[in-house]
């Protein structure tokens, strides 16, 4: 059910891209507002509290952009979509090749279609090979490097800096390579 909701939301966001940006901004501003209040309650002056809240939040625009990107991304594993694309390309290439074989060789159109068939087949091979390499890389890098499994996890110990395994946009090493 939640998948269906996510798909509907994705379609809605696709139709109204500005709406996502507004929603994300409202949400993030709410966070800063709450942090500011907490800082004031802890004894800070209002201006100090707001400044501290912004600092502890980090790069507002970057977070907003990242959240918008995630909202606009496909709500399901895009590997299925890619595989469908490879199959389509392969079918098209095969069809083109068959057509080219049946064309008379002595005319220009026949030669042209043979060239097209070779190019399309080569392209399908390259795209398919890239897809397989990517899959192998992800598998070899263990489940913790799965693209969607890991999220921004700059986790800080209460009194000092912690270990940041992700970059500022919350991307894993694999995501940094492929995105």
């Amino acid at each position, binding site marked *: *059910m*939640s*998948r269906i*909701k*996510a798909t509907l939301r994705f379609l809605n966001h696709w139709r109204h891209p500005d709406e996502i940006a507004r*929603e*994300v901004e*409202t*949400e*993030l501003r*709410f*966070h800063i*507002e*709450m*942090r500011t*209040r907490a800082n004031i309650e802890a004894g800070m002056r209002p201006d100090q509290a707001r400044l501290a809240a912004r600092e*502890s*939040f*980090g*790069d*507002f625009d*970057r*977070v907003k952009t*990242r*959240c918008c990107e*995630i*909202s606009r*991304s496909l*709500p399901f594993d895009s590997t299925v979509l890619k595989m469908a694309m490879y199959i389509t390309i392969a079918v098209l290439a095969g069809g083109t090749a068959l057509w080219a074989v049946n064309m008379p060789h002595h005319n220009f159109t026949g030669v042209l279609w043979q060239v097209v068939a070779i190019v399309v087949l080569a392209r399908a091979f390259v795209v398919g090979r890239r897809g397989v390499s990517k899959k192998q890389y992800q598998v070899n890098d263990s489940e*913790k*490097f799965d693209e*969607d*499994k*890991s*999220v*921004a*996890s*700059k*986790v*800080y*110990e*209460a*009194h*000092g*800096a*912690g*270990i940041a*395994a*992700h970059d500022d*946009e*919350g991307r*894993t090493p694999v995501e940094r390579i492929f995105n």
Partner: protein
Amino acid sequence: MSKSKAGLLQGTLDMLILKALSLGALHGYGVGQRIAQISDDTLKIEEGSLYPGLYRLERRGWVESEWDVSDNNQRAKFYKLTRAGRKQLIIEEQNWERLAGATMKALRAS
């Protein structure tokens, strides 16, 4: 328990967010607060990093969100765990226990 530096492994934030939300619906700020609270203030998520995490969990169908009014009468987005999210939390916990157990075993080896 010592409060010295405690770095977390990748993917741990997912589990922490899911755990925080398993205790009830929360807005993003509340998730960070709850993680700090349930970890006895040992863990604090860098605030900006929390949101991409929440959005990804939502995209995967483990969390769903809804706009509502917060305690201070402000419009806020509340997140709650889905059934798939509850199942995922169990998986994450099991993985974590296995990893922690194996690490402890390795450390105790003489």
